[in-house]
C-alpha cells in the first residue's frame, strides 16, 4: 500500500454516495418482455445494470440515477420509468 501524506483516493463503489437517492424516476424491468439483448447493460451510463449469468440483467437501485437511457434504448420497451415514491 502506498503510504503518503498528501491527498490520495482509492477505488470505491459509490464514491459519490448512494446515488440511487438522486433518482426521480425509477426504471423497472418487465422480465416477461426482456429478450436478454443486453443493450441496457451496454448503454447504461452509470454502469448500474448488472449482467448476470444466463444473460439476465438486474438494475442496482443503490446507484441507478434514474436517467432513463435504458428505457429509451430498450428495443422491446421492456423497461418502464416509474415515478419514485419516497
Amino acid at each position: 500500500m502506498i503510504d503518503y501524506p498528501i491527498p490520495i483516493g482509492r477505488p470505491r463503489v459509490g464514491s459519490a454516495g448512494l446515488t440511487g437517492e438522486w433518482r426521480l424516476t425509477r426504471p423497472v424491468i418487465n422480465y416477461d418482455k426482456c429478450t436478454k439483448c443486453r443493450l441496457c447493460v451496454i448503454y447504461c451510463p452509470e454502469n448500474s445494470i448488472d449482467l448476470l449469468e444466463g444473460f439476465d440483467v438486474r438494475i442496482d437501485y443503490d446507484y441507478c440515477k434514474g436517467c432513463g437511457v435504458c428505457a429509451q434504448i430498450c428495443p422491446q420497451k421492456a423497461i418502464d420509468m416509474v415515478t419514485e415514491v419516497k
Partner: protein
Amino acid sequence: MISVTRNTVAMEGNHAVAYAVKQTKPQVLSVFPITPQTTMLEKLAEYIERGELKAELIKVEGEHSALAAVYGAAISGSRVFTATSSQGLLYMGEMIYWVGGERVPIVSAVATRAIAEPWSIWDDHQDFFTKRDSSWIMMMAENVQDAYDMTIQAFKISEDKKVLLPVMVGFDGFILTHTMERLEILDDEDVERFVPPREFNLVDFSDPINVGPLAQPDDYMKFKRDAMIAMRQSEEVIERTAHEYANLSGRDQDGMIECFNCNDAEYVFLTAGAWSGDAKEAVRRMRKEGKKVGLIKLRVIRPFPEKVREVVRGVSKIVVFDREYSFGFGGILAGELKSKLYGSGIEIMSVIAGLGGKDVRPTHFQKVMNDVISGEKFQERWLND
C-alpha cells in the same frame, strides 16, 4: 591554505549545476530554454548525448509543461530535475503551486532574473520571491560552489521522508550562471552514496490510487497544516544534510544561515544570494577600519530560518538588502525579518537595490552602513544612483 586536488576545477554556474545534476542521476529532465539558464540546458543535453547521463530529456513547448512533465515522471518514480528563470518561472507558476501542494520531491534550479515589463534579462530576485508561498523549500546560492553544493543537497532534502517537499535552488542570473569560478566537485561515488537511488512512487497498479483528487474543506485544511509542519521540520533536515555534506566534502557547510563576522557585531547586513559575497567584502573592509560590522546570509528563505533569532543577540541594527520588492508594502526580506524579530528592540532598516541588474558594489554596502553607524535612520532607502 591552498589545496589542489583532482577535484578542483573551474566552471560557470550553469555548468556547475548541470554537473551536480548529472552526479545525482535523475531519470527524467524537462527544461525549456530561457536566458540566462540556457547554457545549463545545453550542457545537460550534451551529457545525455554523450551517454554520461542516462536520462530522458523531454523537450517541451513551454515552462508550464516542463514542470508538468517532470511532475508526471516524479509521481511515477523518477528522480527529476527542471530549471528556469524569470518569465519562465512565472509561466510555470500554476504548476509550482500544484507540485508544492502535492508534495512531490522535485528539484528545480532558478537562475534569478528581473521580470518584465520593461524587458530585462539581468539579475534580481523578484521572480524567485514571487514563489515564496508555494510550499517549496527555497535555497539561494552565493557563488558557483554554493550552486553546486546546494543542488546536490536539494535532492536529499526533497526526498527526505520528514520533508517530501520540492526544492528550488536560486542562483543569480549571469552573476552566477555565466561566471566561471573555482569549484570543488565531489566524486561520483560519493554523490551516489549521499543521494541514494530514490524510493518514491505513486503509480502502483496493485494499489491504484487517485493522485491529487478533490479535497473537502476539512481535509484541505488538514493537508495544508501537514505541509506547514513538514516545512518547519525541514529546517532540521537542512541543517543535518549540510552537516553530512561537510563530512563528505571536507569543507565547512552552513545550513539555514551563514553568520559572517556577526558574533560580536553591532551592525549587521542581512542578504541572500550572490551579492552576499560583495557584502562580505564590505564587511572585511569595514572590519579593517575597526568597525563592528557583520553579515547574516540566508541560505534558505523558505522556510525562513528560525535560527535568525539566535544569531542576532547583541546586534543593535540590521540593514536588510532586498533585491526584490513587494509594491505597496516594502522590501520582502526586510518585512519578514521585522516580523520574525518583533519585540526584540533591534532596529531594522531596509535597502532596495540591484533591481533589473542595477549594479551594487561593496562600496554601496559600505556607504549605507557608514551612514547607519553615524546615526542615520531610515525606513526604506532605494539605491538608485
